[in-house]
């Protein structure tokens, strides 16, 4: 049973909008941020309209309800991720903050001069820069897992790369190539080498059923706005022992047990890492997002995206042949619905500008992965990325927009 995309589309108000004199929005930028269903928007509005109050402190009715709404959402998100308990789930602003949290707490207290952290050549800057910052302070070494020609991790030399390393930090799915990495295999390799692992699930959680307990990572991060949730909310998952052993991140209210003029003690996890008033409405919205995804079904979403990616690769190749390069694995089953394209010699900025005129929304640029772009020999690509609300008509519109761009820049 495929997804009923025409019904799903109706749940997303932005997809019903038009731009440039009545053209429907063809949204192909979900790897950047996803659209939000009405149920998420309503859940946040309802929170503000009915139970808005600060959490974990008020003794009155709506304060209790606000706390319950927030912690209830934590429980549902934890379940969605396959966590054993909601104590394993720390809310952060986004994946970037989650990785910075790990780098600043676990990293700064466990890494010393000469230690190695292993990254891959397909990482988002969110995974690269925090470790560069620790390297600048602590003098750690960064090692890089290279890529094969079709955009997979090249693990030929992996034993040497992880030898003596303290951490392997990598993405579960590339936001540029769509490559789905062998997460379980890599976390196992890290563990055998005595290293911790940090998995960036930003592109995985929205599109594939995720079970952190099975993936075997020590740290797992994700971001809410790519999985139908609002901006400003993301998370870090780790086992309780791991979180307990880490020093706190930001200091302030919510994260303390006691404060005196001499010092402070931290409260229990996960709140120990959640200083200050949390983004309550956003957490409630994220809870509504996982409810929506669960109702549709993650396996159904994945199957839909494999089929649609296959359709895109096939039809675009038929239409444009060698004029069009699509980076990454050729086989739809080993990739997500992320397609970085190069078309003729047209610069991605010019390409996406013409596409916009057709209502087609694509991102152009380096996609926050400059080392990868360099390895691809490009400064920039245009990227089309799919989600549950896209259908074959959207792919056909992409093809038509490509054709229009080709005509415009035909010289």
């Amino acid at each position, binding site marked *: 049973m495929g997804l009923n995309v025409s019904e799903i589309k109706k749940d997303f108000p932005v997809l019903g909008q038009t731009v440039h004199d009545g053209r429907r929005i063809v949204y192909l930028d979900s790897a950047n941020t996803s659209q939000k269903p009405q149920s998420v928007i309503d859940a946040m509005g309802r929170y503000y309209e009915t139970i808005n109050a600060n959490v974990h402190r008020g003794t009155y009715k709506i304060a209790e309800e606000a706390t319950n709404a927030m912690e209830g959402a934590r429980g549902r998100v934890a379940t969605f991720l396959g966590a054993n308990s909601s104590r394993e789930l720390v809310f952060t602003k986004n994946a970037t903050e989650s990785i910075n949290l790990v780098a600043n707490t676990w990293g700064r207290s466990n890494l010393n001069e000469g230690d190695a952290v292993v990254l891959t050549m397909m990482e988002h800057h969110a995974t690269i820069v925090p470790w560069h910052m620790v390297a600048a302070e602590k003098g750690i070494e960064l090692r890089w897992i290279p890529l094969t020609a079709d955009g997979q991790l090249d693990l030929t030399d992996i034993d040497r790369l992880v030898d003596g390393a303290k951490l392997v930090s990598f993405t579960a799915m590339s936001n540029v190539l769509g490559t789905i990495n062998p997460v379980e295999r890599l976390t196992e390799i890290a563990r055998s080498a005595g290293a911790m692992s940090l998995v960036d699930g930003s592109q995985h959680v929205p599109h594939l059923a995720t079970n952190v307990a099975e993936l075997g990572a020590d740290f797992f991060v994700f971001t809410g706005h790519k999985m139908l949730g609002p901006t400003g909310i993301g998370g870090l998952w780790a086992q309780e022992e791991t979180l307990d052993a880490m020093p706190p991140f930001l200091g302030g209210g919510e994260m303390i047990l006691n404060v005196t003029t001499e010092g402070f003690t931290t409260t229990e996890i996960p709140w120990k890492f959640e200083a200050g008033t949390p983004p309550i409405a956003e957490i409630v919205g994220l809870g509504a997002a996982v409810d929506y995804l669960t109702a549709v079904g993650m396996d159904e979403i994945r199957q839909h995206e494999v089929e649609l990616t296959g359709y895109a690769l096939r039809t675009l190749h038929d239409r444009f042949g060698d004029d069009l390069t699509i980076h990454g694995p050729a086989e739809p089953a080993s990739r997500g619905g992320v397609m970085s394209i190069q078309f003729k010699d047209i*610069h*991605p*900025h*010019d390409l996406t*500008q*013409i596409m916009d*005129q057709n209502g087609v929304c694509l991102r*152009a*640029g*380096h996609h926050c992965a*400059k080392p990868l*772009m360099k390895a691809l020999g490009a*400064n*920039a690509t245009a990227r089309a990325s799919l989600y549950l609300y896209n259908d074959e008509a959207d792919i056909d519109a992409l093809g038509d927009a490509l054709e229009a761009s080709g005509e*415009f*820049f035909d*010289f």
Partner: protein
Amino acid sequence: MGLEDLYREIILDHYRSPRNRGELPPPAHRVEGFNPLCGDEVVLTIEVDDEGMVKDLKIGGQGCSISQSSASMMTAAIKGKSAAEAREFIEAFKTMMSIHSKELGDDEHGELDQIDPDLDLGDLEALKGVVQYPVRIKCATLGWNTLTQALDELSA
């Protein structure tokens, strides 16, 4: 607002056949400019003589039609001018580019009427349409910011 306002014929012409393309050999001064948004890079090489005259300048690197054509027009406009005149040109161009960002509350580049009304931007006027596309302003100004940096370094 149609695409023709953004991609004027003169812009496409400079994109197809960029002027002063390449790199001058040392001892020409060399500066790299980056557009952090899209990853485009320009390499500007420039020779300024003892009288402060821009004897020659070239543009290398990669970029979209807007950044490439803007840089190409810039080299044509600046070559043979004094460094002081070049700075006036830069100021005039960036003011033209800031009309829209000013409306958005960015007051960085001063008032339009402060620039010399006699200063003729020539072909560069064709880039006016870019201000309607705020994200592309960074493309149009990439070469110019790099030139400013080069002139600053040379006079330091």
